[in-house]
């Protein structure tokens, strides 16, 4: 039997033409006005600086909510954890706000707590396949539980382990409610992800009532209100006279894993003995 050619000249030329033709069509398509505009917009929006500038230019970002956690002051009482569990109706085996005992490089113990960082370039929102989570114009990262399909990619992507998943259906209330406050939000259904919201329900309701989040207690996150040593401060970074803006100006601060470029909205004041 004669050796059949692997690729005849004609086949080769056809293939080349097909590839060239596809490329030409792709280039031509990208020139069409609406498509070109879409591509341009998508490319521009990729850059977080641009995104923030756009938000400012539109005048949307009236507020920019942030939190300051003073690790010099924290005494490790974990009240912030308990208040969060109660107010946000978080099951006992899940944590939105985490406490861990830590030591500095020189071995001095300090108390570390970690809410959601509310990153401006949040990896969890970028990876969500259903737009169930996003960064609001005021900097808060929130979720729409009714859109979440429970793929858990946000958990995998978050550098801070700030997201938890509802592995099982809820049974009863949080064990912290009797002592630490009434639940203010609905429990989440089985099979969706959830995370710290900066008590967004308090902020939105408070603003509607003319309150100032961070100053008026009903409009301030539960963890900030409960702190007995005022280690947590909440407020508007867009207001240069807010307490948090002034503290960030005065004190040395850092944010977690700044090398990743996530631009967190939670600032930490280093504990005694820690060099930045």
């Amino acid at each position, binding site marked *: *039997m004669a050796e*059949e050619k*692997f*690729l005849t000249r004609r*086949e080769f030329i056809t*293939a080349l033409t*097909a590839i060239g033709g*596809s490329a030409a069509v792709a280039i031509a398509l990208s020139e069409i006005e609406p498509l070109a505009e879409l591509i341009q917009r998508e490319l521009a929006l*990729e850059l977080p600086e641009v995104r923030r500038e756009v938000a400012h230019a539109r005048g949307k970002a009236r507020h920019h909510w942030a939190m300051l956690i003073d690790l010099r002051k924290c005494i490790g009482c974990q009240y912030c954890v308990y208040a969060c569990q109660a107010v946000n109706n978080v099951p006992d085996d*899940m944590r939105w706000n985490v406490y*861990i*005992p*830590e*030591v*500095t*490089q020189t*071995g001095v113990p*300090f108390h*570390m707590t*970690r809410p959601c960082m509310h990153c401006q370039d949040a*990896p969890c929102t*970028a*990876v*969500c*396949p*259903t*737009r*169930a989570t996003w960064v609001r114009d005021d900097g808060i990262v929130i979720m729409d539980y009714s*859109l*979440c*399909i*429970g*793929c*858990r*990619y946000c*958990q*995998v*992507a*978050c*550098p*801070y*382990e700030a*997201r*938890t*998943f*509802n*592995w*099982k*259906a809820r049974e009863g209330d949080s064990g912290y409610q009797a002592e630490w406050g009434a639940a203010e939000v609905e429990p989440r259904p*089985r*099979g*969706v*992800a959830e995370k710290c919201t900066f008590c967004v329900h308090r902020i939105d309701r408070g603003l509607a009532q003319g309150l100032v989040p961070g100053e008026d207690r009903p409009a301030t996150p539960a963890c900030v209100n409960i702190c007995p040593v005022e280690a947590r401060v909440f407020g508007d970074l867009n207001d240069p006279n807010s307490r948090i803006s002034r503290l960030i100006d005065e004190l040395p601060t*850092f944010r*977690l*894993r700044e090398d*990743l*470029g996530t631009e967190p909205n939670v600032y*930490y004041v*280093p504990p005694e003995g820690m060099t930045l």
Partner: protein
Amino acid sequence: MTTAIATLRRQVRAYPVFATWLMFLGVMLLVGLVSAAAVLWVGLDVTNLSNRVPWGLWITVDLSAIALGAGAFSLSTIVYIFRVKSFAPIARMAVFVGFVGYTSAMLALVMDIGRPDRFWHPMVYWNVHSVLWEVTMCVIFYSAVLVFELAPAVLESEAVVKRFPRGPQIAHVMHRFTPVVSVVGLGLSLLHQSSLGATYGVLAARPLWFKPTLPVMFIVSAVAAGSTFTLALTVFYENVIGKRQISSKLRGHIAMFAGLMMLAYLYLKLWDFLATFYYSHLPARVEANTLLESTTPYGTTFWWLEIVLGALIPAIILLTPALRRQDLWVLLGGFLAVGGVIANRWNVTLSGLVVPMDWSPGAAQLFSVQPYTPSLAEWGVAIGVLGYALTMFTLGLRFLPLFNHEAHGEH
């Protein structure tokens, strides 16, 4: 009823091996159904997944099934886009293997997501910035392509023709669109086979994952292992029915193609290793690797299961004419390549997840390696998905004209 049972009894006596095989498949499917019911009823709590390790065995099943289905687009591309007619006899089998692979993957995925009732959300609530969204859309569209490409085989099958004589005519018309559909299929496959790797590769917080090589290694390994798998399955089928379906020359060509792809994969793997571990020492990566080496078998399984057994030996078998001519060697090569791709998908998924992310500014060793072993329910669902795939292969090879269809007109 009694006659049906009598017929069944006669059939079982006449084909004892096939009957045993079907019973075996039935048990697998039953195990799968029971486990799936437990997952749907109780929720993902029945798994050993956790907030630290949210992905595990099912993601491995899903990624492996998609990778092994990649023979479909690779071999279809050779036949319909590059118009290498000598590959035509394998095209339909490749598409069938792809169909089974993709549907298996979707089964595993539906079990894996917390809200299976919302599986359609990505199609409606687009997030174009999400790799996973792109993967979802491509997998859905590509599955449609596979259904279209496989439809002629179904329409030409004996059972359909008996009840629907016009079947082959429709199949013929559909077949004329195959080249166009193949181009679409190629585009979709190039996108999602790679972006499944990018799913891991884009996560900057995970030092073992964050690299641009992952998407490329995913697609090349998928093309290599997928084509090898299609070939091995064909050879296996030939042995079962005792009749050759593809010429030894075509077998040589497919083996050559798969073998060269395997070499390309090894080359990428080599440079990935050299660039990320040998010639550079990114602290986070070195630390993660040291942790893995000391606490998990991933280092050993990487070198032995992924590289030596999973790629190097299959490549040697596929590229040595004296070896690939022998059925046993091809089957061994296929088996090893499949094992290699599964080991790779497992290692990529788990190695990145079990290494803790140190977000705390302190110096205490608070974050330990998070062990993960799949639970009984997870194994049950995985066995069920495998049972589904094997059942489909059995039925498809028994009832669909996957090989002897040249009469219906190639181009």
